[in-house]
């Protein structure tokens, strides 16, 4: 179709709300930039704890994304392809963290993985391992909140993918695992990547479940959103600077990754 290449012909009923949407999403960011104390920026950026919080945020969000990929992609396949009973109930259940207030998610994690929790008390007694107030707790809290984004995204890609390729692979003698690895996964790779990015971004900004389940300790559990929230109570300028750092890092990461995929998709 040549029409899609013309590009500029956006119908006015779409153009106006789309422009309003852009303004609504982008203007608050402009507001942050306007209020940024540029003169004290250097001092704020080198304040103790900023680098530490940023590193912890990136590491924990990446680990949470990795964990989400390991568990979430198979889960998405089960939701999209398997014929088990109660699939729609299962789908509703695994997307609950999307609507649950994250603070409540944090308490729920305590009830399972806390020192007094169902699994946590056993871990404590059997291995002397306690999870709350550790970096592990940060990763788990972020995974709990962010994994549904990946699952929903990958399941959508699987449903949209043409199942006939898989059927052909089967007729050529591939077992289901081989088909998943060699046919299905490459087919839905863009969907997996998009889901992973969404998951990473959500994990990076996670606040409620983290501060509840993992607590707040510099270097161990204090991620950027927690540092921003606490800075906001004492020194709003510092909070703005911290937010900008987080914003810059996430934008840079997302743009970089996007270029890589586009390059791969074209090449």
């Amino acid at each position: 179709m040549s029409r899609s290449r013309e590009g500029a012909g956006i119908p006015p009923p779409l153009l106006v709300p789309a422009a309003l949407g852009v303004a609504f999403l982008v203007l608050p960011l402009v507001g942050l930039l306007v209020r940024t104390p540029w003169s004290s920026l250097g001092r704020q950026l080198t304040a103790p704890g900023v680098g530490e919080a940023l590193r912890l945020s990136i590491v924990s969000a990446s680990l949470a994304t990795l964990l989400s990929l390991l568990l979430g992609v198979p889960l998405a396949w089960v939701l999209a392809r398997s014929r088990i009973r109660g699939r729609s109930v299962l789908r509703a259940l695994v997307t609950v963290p999307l609507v649950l207030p994250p603070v409540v998610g944090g308490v729920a994690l305590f009830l399972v993985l806390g020192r007094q929790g169902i699994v946590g008390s056993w871990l404590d007694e059997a291995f002397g391992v306690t999870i709350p107030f550790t970096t592990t707790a940060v990763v788990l809290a972020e995974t709990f909140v962010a994994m549904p984004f990946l699952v929903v995204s990958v399941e959508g890609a699987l449903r949209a993918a043409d199942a006939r390729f898989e059927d052909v692979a089967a007729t050529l003698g591939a077992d289901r695992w081989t088909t998943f690895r060699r046919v299905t996964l490459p087919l839905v790779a863009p969907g997996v990547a998009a889901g992973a990015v969404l998951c990473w971004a959500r994990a990076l900004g996670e606040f409620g479940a983290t501060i509840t389940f993992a607590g707040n300790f510099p270097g161990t559990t204090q991620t950027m959103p927690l540092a921003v929230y606490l800075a906001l109570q004492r020194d709003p300028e510092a909070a703005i600077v911290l937010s900008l750092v987080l914003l810059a890092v996430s934008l840079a990461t997302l743009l970089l990754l996007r270029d890589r995929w586009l390059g791969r998709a074209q090449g």
Partner: protein
Amino acid sequence: MTARLALLAAAVLVGAAACGGPDGADQPVRSGAPAGDAAPTGTLTIFAAASLSDVFARLGAELEEQNPELDVRFNFAGSSALAAQLEQGAPTDVFASADEDQMTRVVDAGLAPEAELFASNRLVLAFPPDDPAGIDRSDSAGIPSLADLLDRDVTLAVCAPEVPCGAAAAEVLDRTGLSDVPDTYEDDVRAVLTKVQLGEVDAGLVYRTDVSSAGDAVGARAFREAEAARNRYPVAVLDDAPNPDAARAFVDLLLSDEGRQVLTEAGFFEP
């Protein structure tokens, strides 16, 4: 134990759902109002420290009963967060802070004239009912030092230094040389109390009044260093108060004998 945790989770859920609701807004309107001259009417908006929730809700209901035309609304949160909201221009009649620093911040910003002190509070060491770390040993006679109560490896939650209860906690920990003991710096005192109630920490530094309101859900020990680090609560009517008459009426009630009695019952000290 599991039942207790489930109950607590339910309480948190309900609490989260109730957040932001206009507390005490649906107070029944009585007929036959006391015919005071120029009884305050309209809406009274009060920003108050989270630790004042119970006491202020009672006094607010009392004021509404005296003035049926009046609707009292509260915003309870950490004092620092409230001060930040006031700096951003939140329309408010009364501000009550859990320490003088946050009130000074508001006064210095030109938002309020001088404030009046109306109460003070002290930190105590709270612990779960089963006391896993053995904080509550009967052998320590008199009021022990915090160092005596925390003389072993314990998981300790305190408030972050950004909020008033954290400033007091930092002072106490400094004084006793225990600054490296905390495992988590929580964003407000109720978060510390929740972690103690859940049994996820062995102990937490909270206000005496929080322990009173938690009932049997936590135990607590007083300690010597708390007195020197006690925090005082100032209250002020803001310069741009939309309803200054009602604001004054609330502050008068707070400073009256009746207000003092409600504060004392809740465990607050004189300023």
